[in-house]
């Protein structure tokens, strides 16, 4: 998917001014928060689980090559094929080649962020292969010609009315259909697609190195259908999806499901090790695993950023982020929104593309608090800002650099600090005394559009302390 992260400021502003979008997200969030709180409360060992999950993800990341090699070996031993793609274009090329060799004309897809990343649908369609998204939310978004706005609930930005209208137009469901009816309508259309498709495409939630197992979690059943009925199954994963042992899944599944949807487990968890065994009645005859780098090795090589690769794509950080809540996923301009998006997009899509994202955060810290694998997201946001500041060209705007240099210079000496504070007092006190709601120019203009500025005190704490040695600033101020 082509990044549109350069448009972030405008997109964010438009989103804030869209009350329908904000209402949709707020409603969805409320139910999620409730479910998740209950689910987490039911596990007193929640923090120990997070510790273990961070540990095993780091274990895999620290010896990533070995884990990936083990995964490949075991899948190949069962007759599966493993392919390695440096970037999105290479990955699409591999999938197209697989499809060509299999004579595939139609494909069903289950939800996969990585396939969004590489623009797989467009590539398949370009080769004349009919692709349909089978996850209900993704299907809706596909029919609307849009991109998903959330990792877990892709169509959360659309109201039921909008969806009813869309489905009526595209698949002929009743114009005033309610949610169960819409769901039934989509199910009927998609059932045919499942039964006829030559190719099934899926993502991977976890890839177990010890046993060579691809794990896929879902609630609808579309991933099971996509990976069982068509004769070819292509699974695509980022290099960071590998985990060491099957036993680790006990911890990871508990964390993922609660963090993503507030469930103790999703309806279906599929564990796939290879193509169907000889003599089986169903299951794919070919299993292909495509392992994608796509810039992840760059993140991996930067020790400061490596922990970002622990991400299990649960979406919790999005749900808890006050910024995401107000602007939704599309404003972020790429596949991964919210805090994790702001952390990894500069690494995956390039710093030039995503320069605004790491700054779109008040660093409130909620994301890091809820991350099931303890990614220090606020720290990584700051690390991204630091990388930008350290970069020669283009780096941060010159006005930022100037302001910082000035700031550091001023606070570097008590005398300069006192002079600067005095200047501020001298300038702002009269203005704000006369007009508390005064609008300012320059950087303060943005502040004063919606808020009053605080008025500097007549006498600073420093001055008072020096003035009144006996009382030493302890008494009440006049």
């Amino acid at each position, binding site marked *: 998917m082509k990044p549109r992260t350069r448009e972030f400021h405008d997109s964010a502003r438009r989103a804030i001014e869209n009350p329908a979008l904000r209402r949709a997200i707020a409603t969805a969030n409320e139910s999620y928060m409730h479910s998740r709180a209950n689910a987490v409360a039911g596990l007193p060992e929640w923090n120990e689980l997070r510790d273990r999950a961070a540990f095993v993800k780091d274990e895999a990341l620290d010896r990533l090559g070995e884990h990936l090699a083990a995964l490949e070996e075991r899948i190949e031993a*069962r007759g599966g094929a493993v392919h390695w793609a440096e970037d999105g274009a290479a990955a699409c090329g591999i999938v197209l080649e697989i499809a060509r060799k299999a004579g595939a004309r139609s494909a069903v897809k289950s939800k996969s962020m990585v396939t969004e990343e590489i623009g797989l649908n467009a590539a398949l369609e370009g080769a004349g292969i009919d692709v349909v998204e089978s996850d209900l939310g993704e299907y*809706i978004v596909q029919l609307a010609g849009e991109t998903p706005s959330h990792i877990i609930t892709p169509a959360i930005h659309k109201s*039921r009315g909008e969806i009813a209208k869309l489905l009526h137009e595209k698949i002929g469901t009743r114009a005033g259909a309610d949610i169960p009816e819409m769901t039934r309508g989509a199910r009927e259309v998609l059932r045919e697609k499942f039964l006829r498709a030559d190719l099934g495409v899926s993502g991977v939630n976890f890839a177990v190195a010890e046993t060579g197992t691809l794990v896929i979690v879902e*609630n609808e*059943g579309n991933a099971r259908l996509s990976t069982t009925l068509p004769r070819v199954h292509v699974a695509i994963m980022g290099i960071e999806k590998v985990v060491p*042992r099957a036993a680790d899944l006990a911890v990871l599944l508990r964390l993922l499901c609660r963090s993503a949807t507030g469930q103790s487990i999703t309806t279906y*968890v599929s564990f796939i090790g290879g193509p169907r065994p000889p003599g*089986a009645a169903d299951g794919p005859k070919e299993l292909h695993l495509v392992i994608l780098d796509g810039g992840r090795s760059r993140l991996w090589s930067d020790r400061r950023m490596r922990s970002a690769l622990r991400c299990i794509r649960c979406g919790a950080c999005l749900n808890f982020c006050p910024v995401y809540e107000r602007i939704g996923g599309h404003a972020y301009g790429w596949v991964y929104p919210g805090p994790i998006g702001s952390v990894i997009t500069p690494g995956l899509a390039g710093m030039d593309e995503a320069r605004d994202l790491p700054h779109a955060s008040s660093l409130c810290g909620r994301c890091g608090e809820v991350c099931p694998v303890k990614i220090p997201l606020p720290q990584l946001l700051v690390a991204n800002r630091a990388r930008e500041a350290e970069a020669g060209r283009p780096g941060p705007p010159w006005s930022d650099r100037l302001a910082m240099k000035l700031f550091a210079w001023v606070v570097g000496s008590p005398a300069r600090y006192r002079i600067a504070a005095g200047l501020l007092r001298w300038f702002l006190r009269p203005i704000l005394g006369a007009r508390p709601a005064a609008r300012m120019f320059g950087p303060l203009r943005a502040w004063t559009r919606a808020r009053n500025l605080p008025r500097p005190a007549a006498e600073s704490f420093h001055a008072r302390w020096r003035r009144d040695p006996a009382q030493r600033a302890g008494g009440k101020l006049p």
Partner: protein
Amino acid sequence: MSDGAPFRDRLLDLLGSPAGRARLFEPLERVTSSSTARDPAALRDRFSQELLRVGGEVHDLTGAPDLRGALGEILRGLVPSSEGTAARPQAAFDRDPVWEKLPEPSALLLEAGFDSVDVAAGDSRAIKKLAGATVGITIADLALAETGSILQLDRPWRARSISLLPPVHLVIVPEGRLLGGFEDLFEAAAGHLGGSSGYMTLITGPSRTADIEKVLTIGVHGPGKVAAALVS
């Protein structure tokens, strides 16, 4: 590494290829889990509670005198007969050896008002047949009390789609196969996961979605009705 080396080699080289350091996959102690019960009655209770919570049906037939009658009743309850329909609904079942200790399935189905669909191993028309079936009946390989789930391993006697294509899934859970928590499950399944097929699927209740305004809808692509019958 030379430029001509395929990307795989370059990548694994960068990420650190096998270097004979400490063993991989050293086992770790379990994180204390509050969710593992031990005695059979407690396991059954927890299993029922969890499966009911996600909209499944649970029938405790442990020690039931007339299994055949009971199962027949459950089946009829799952697929209420519509008046005036000539065709009998179709039901498919697997060939788990456990059936030898249970009422014979095709006779059971006949009595309950169903036509059996025979899906043997290697049946190339299996999928088509299952797509036309109303009920899929399987024996659980394992079950999990922690979440009310059942596990189906890949078996020569069971098509994967039996528990997937028909809109109703009836699963029979033999008592000894009910485990407490995830740790127990993965320990028991480790051999199979590392084995020649490596395939298994964990099923918890009916299919669902909340993709539209986060409103829960039961029954999407997978079965919309799931019933578990616990037997001794």
